[in-house]
């Protein structure tokens, strides 16, 4: 892993120049400044638990713990992520996240952890590193929620880091989770804003698979079965154009309005789903005048993508098919225009207006729900720590009591040794008893003081018993008889035979 080799974070120094300290005023593209919930977020550091924490020492301890038992505690991880306020700790956070992801407890990662990670990196202005973490689910396992995604997308738009905003949108496309109107519209806006001046190299995969070093020597790796090549057209998508196109399609499919339809059509062009694009156009042709409108910009971009020669050049068969789609799409475009279904206007402006509208509608509720969530997480964290502390104290107390009990027992054994000499000797094995007796006879020290006891009788040393069926039967005969009796009483004598 690259993390162990050295610092990826600190040496690169990619802190964004527009960084402002968290105590300053925040500015956003669309969201109100109250959306950041600065005060509520800072409140987490005022609790006695977080106040006392020393993050460097905590890191060392956590690291030791991870290396010892390979399964970290989700609570520790959460506390660490929430405690990060300095850029130096971000590297440690990244490292611990990777450790935690490898453990089986990763399933129990708290929702607040991913929130805290995103906010920690955002507050320090390390956007590139944050994108790397969000992009690689296998190594870090950070999944965004609607609130942090909105925050991140809006901040990226404000800083004009359009590829970052698009990456967040793509993340939601991969999760197929555009349930929140604000997230959906911000994603659409981010993609369209990126498309104004697209730099596709900036959207290249962040964690490309590393080919093994070529040593010139062929190494044979034996496996039971070879895995066939498989392309799922979702997680395996690496082409930035296709990813962005699919994002536009999935986000646009959530709402059947002018923006949604246009985005879907544009996305089909980028994603090279010609059939789906032409289907959208035919649906528009048959739909009513209200539900059948689309921006001519989207149709033009779809046709442009359709007519474009791909590189490297495709087969003749594929090219012929594509040309047939071109004919159909152009015909549909010609029929849409006189029906008044092709609207003029810019898609980006439409998306911007939609985002502004949605912000007015849902920002308030988002803020209130997130505020209550932060407070809930804070109390939950405190309660959980208190519970675990209490548990720890109890186990410690129990250990102390057990030690005390053992000590008392030892003292009692010493004090009452001669009274219990019988019992001690009984605990010996027959051979040891015999040898002890011989020793005492040889010494002349043998005196069987037990003869003074009127209830004393000499125990015979029995030969070792071997287990046989009849012996077992004889020893347990009473038990069997009882069972038999019970069965006969309940079911009758016939039931036994």
């Amino acid at each position, binding site marked *: 892993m690259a993390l162990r080799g050295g610092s990826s974070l600190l040496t690169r120094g990619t802190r964004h120049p527009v960084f402002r300290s968290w105590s300053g005023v925040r500015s956003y593209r669309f969201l109100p400044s109250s959306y950041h919930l600065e005060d509520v977020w800072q409140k987490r550091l005022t609790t006695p638990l977080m106040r006392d924490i020393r993050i460097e020492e905590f890191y060392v301890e956590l690291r030791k713990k991870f290396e010892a038992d390979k399964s970290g505690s989700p609570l520790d991880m959460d506390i660490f992520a929430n405690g990060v306020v300095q850029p130096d700790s971000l590297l440690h956070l990244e490292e611990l996240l990777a450790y935690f*992801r*490898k*453990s*089986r407890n*990763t*399933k129990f990662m708290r929702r607040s952890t991913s929130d805290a990670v995103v906010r920690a990196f955002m507050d320090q202005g390390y956007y590139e590193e944050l994108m790397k973490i969000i992009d690689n*689910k*296998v190594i870090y*396992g950070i*999944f965004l929620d609607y609130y942090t995604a909105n925050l991140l997308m809006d901040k990226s738009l404000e800083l004009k880091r359009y590829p970052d905003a698009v990456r967040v949108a793509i993340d939601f496309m*991969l*999760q*197929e*989770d555009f349930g929140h109107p604000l997230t959906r519209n911000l994603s659409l806006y981010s993609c369209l804003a990126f498309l104004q001046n697209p730099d596709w190299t900036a959207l290249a995969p962040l964690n490309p698979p590393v080919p*093994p*070093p*070529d*040593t*010139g*020597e*062929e*190494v*044979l*790796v*034996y*496996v*039971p*079965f*070879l*895995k*066939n090549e*498989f392309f*799922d057209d*979702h*997680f395996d998508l690496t082409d930035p154009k296709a990813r962005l196109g699919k994002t536009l399609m999935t986000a646009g*499919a959530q709402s059947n309005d002018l923006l949604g339809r246009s985005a879907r059509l544009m996305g089909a062009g980028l994603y090279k789903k010609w059939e789906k694009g032409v289907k959208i156009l035919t649906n528009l042709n048959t739909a009513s005048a209200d539900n059948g409108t689309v921006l001519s910009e989207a149709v033009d971009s779809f046709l442009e993508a359709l007519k474009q020669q791909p590189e490297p050049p495709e087969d003749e068969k594929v090219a012929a098919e594509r040309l047939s789609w071109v004919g159909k799409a152009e015909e549909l475009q010609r029929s849409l225009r006189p029906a008044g279904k092709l609207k003029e206007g810019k898609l980006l402006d439409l998306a911007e207006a939609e985002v502004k509208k949605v912000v007015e509608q849902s920002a308030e509720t988002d803020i209130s729900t997130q505020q209550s969530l932060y407070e809930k997480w804070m109390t939950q964290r405190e309660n959980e720590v208190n519970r675990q502390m209490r548990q720890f104290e109890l186990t410690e107390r129990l250990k102390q009591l057990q030690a005390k009990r053992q000590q008392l027992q030892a003292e009692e054994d010493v004090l009452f040794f001669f009274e219990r000499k019988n019992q001690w000797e009984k605990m010996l094995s027959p051979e040891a008893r015999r040898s002890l007796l011989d020793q005492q006879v040889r010494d002349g020290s043998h005196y069987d003081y037990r003869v003074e006891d009127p209830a004393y009788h000499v125990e015979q040393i029995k030969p070792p018993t071997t287990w046989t069926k009849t012996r077992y039967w004889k020893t347990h005969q009473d038990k069997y008889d009882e069972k038999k009796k019970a069965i006969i009483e309940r079911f009758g004598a016939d039931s036994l035979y």
Partner: protein
Amino acid sequence: MPLRIVGRQSTLSGKYLFEILRNLKDFGIGRIVTRSLLERYPEPCYYLVRDVRPIMDPEGKFGLMDADVVFRGKNLGTQVVSTGFKADWKLVPKDEEASYTSQMKPDAKELPRKRVVPAAVPFPPVLRRLLTDEARKSGKDVTTEPILPLTLLRGPQNYPIQEGVEAPLGAASSPGNPINTILPQSMAGHLLISNVFGNKRKFKKKKFNA
């Protein structure tokens, strides 16, 4: 090429289960996955993820999943799925989930079967000749063709619908069979193989000498 992987060829196409699930939020709890091996059935077959026990190995090969298993339109309940190491798992996109689940009615436990087989078939030539000869000798009507009623074996995976037969196993040869009213020319009651050849298959008890 420094690495060369050697192994037997596989007929499966897809991914390991946890190769998919570890990319999803909450390990895909609530999502639907399916196997390419089950695509050959016309009825819906899928797994609705309920809980996971990941191992987090680098390939995503190992781990257990608790899922609501639906096999050929039949809900088998929540089961532990341990076949995640087979490389033929697929994630069902959310917009296609309805096509899997809509066929499953919430109250019905399974889909009605539509595998209809004939209730009776014509006899093979030699048997037919024998029977018609026998009928002619005894002075019966020989213009109608004799028909052999079929008795099908039924099991948990095999329960076809027979035309006109609603009763289960072995009902086709019973005298009260509705087939006699539907197919008047059938000689279902008295045209058993045992009637033709005599009951030769007698069960012999084996004796063991101790």
